[in-house]
């Protein structure tokens, strides 16, 4: 086996547990997207155009609420800001690659591809072919996400309205937010954002969401002050 293939398959292998974990979420996303009124093709294409689990769930929620496009785009931007951190963290390892490689690997840089890759690079160091590791991990998750989305779309169309499937969306967000409430600033950020969201609910264009999120971020940052608690990370199982 060539060095390229060796690195590629090592990346795929490292990704397998995350693929298993991510599969149900791709299905839930697909089912909810159809339930929220997205067309089959839009629901499927979002999984490759945006290719970011939490942003896709939030977009689905905002489409359901008929939020205007600029609010959805702004929300996707805020939610995906964390990817800049991944970008910063992997940058030194990918510095010598061509721009074409950097573009491809950046597209594949989800939470799930980042995690095993950064651990592998830190432990094993890098070699001239170690970018194939990230390629393997990223492509494996990409396939997983497309297939699980398609299956969810297929099943979602068959689920009756009376099951209140739409409630699975806020429940998914609850499951994502509770584990990051590890310290006081994070709890304060969550509570202040939540309460502001209730009072700002009547604002036009669903702008209340943006206002509330900004208030929460500011409250958390101020409360943190000089202390530096453990960093919160998104839960596993979603790109």
């Amino acid at each position, binding site marked *: 086996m060539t060095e390229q293939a060796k690195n590629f398959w090592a990346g795929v292998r490292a990704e397998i547990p995350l693929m298993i974990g991510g599969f149900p979420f791709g299905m839930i996303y697909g089912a909810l997207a159809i339930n929220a009124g*997205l067309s089959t093709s*839009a629901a499927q294409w979002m999984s490759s155009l*945006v290719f*970011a689990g*939490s942003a896709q769930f*939030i*977009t689905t*929620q905002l489409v359901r609420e008929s939020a*205007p*496009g600029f609010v*959805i*785009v702004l*929300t*996707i*931007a805020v*939610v*995906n800001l*964390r*990817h800049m*951190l991944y*970008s*910063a963290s*992997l*940058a030194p390892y990918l510095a010598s690659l061509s721009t074409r490689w950097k573009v491809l*690997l*950046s*597209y594949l*840089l989800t939470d799930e591809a980042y995690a095993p890759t950064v651990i592998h690079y830190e432990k094993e160091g890098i070699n001239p072919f170690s970018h194939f590791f990230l390629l393997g991990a990223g492509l494996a998750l990409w396939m997983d996400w497309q297939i699980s989305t398609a299956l969810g779309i297929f099943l979602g169309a068959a689920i009756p309205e009376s099951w209140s499937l739409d*409630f699975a*969306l806020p*429940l*998914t*967000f*609850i*499951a*994502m*937010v*509770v*584990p*990051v*409430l590890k310290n006081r*600033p994070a709890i304060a*950020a*969550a509570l202040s*954002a*939540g309460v*502001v*969201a209730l009072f700002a609910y009547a604002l036009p264009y669903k702008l209340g*969401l943006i206002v*509330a999120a*900004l208030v*929460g*971020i*500011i409250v*958390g*940052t101020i409360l*943190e002050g000089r202390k530096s608690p453990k960093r*919160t990370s*998104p*839960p596993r199982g979603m790109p």
Partner: protein
Amino acid sequence: MNIWLVMLIGGLITFGMRFSLIYLFGRFHVPEALRKALRYVPPAVLSAIIFPELFIRDEMLNLSLDNYRLMAGLVAILAAWFTKNILITILAGMLALFLLQFFL
């Protein structure tokens, strides 16, 4: 805005963030203040979505026990707290809502 345009711009922004510092390596450093603020994006954004979903029914604040989604949401919060498992949390919340709707 058309959903396709939203997805295209949303996708470009997402890609842009993933590409940004890989591309700018050596030329730009993430300021510490931004790094700090980024930690509070998940709790703030997610709560801003969750609260209205649980507390507002028919455009009104509803804090009563008849607000089944609020009750089921609290069950889900407990499940999330104790299990830290996304699937169990969703199942617990859906089951709670189902039981409340059909038996009360």
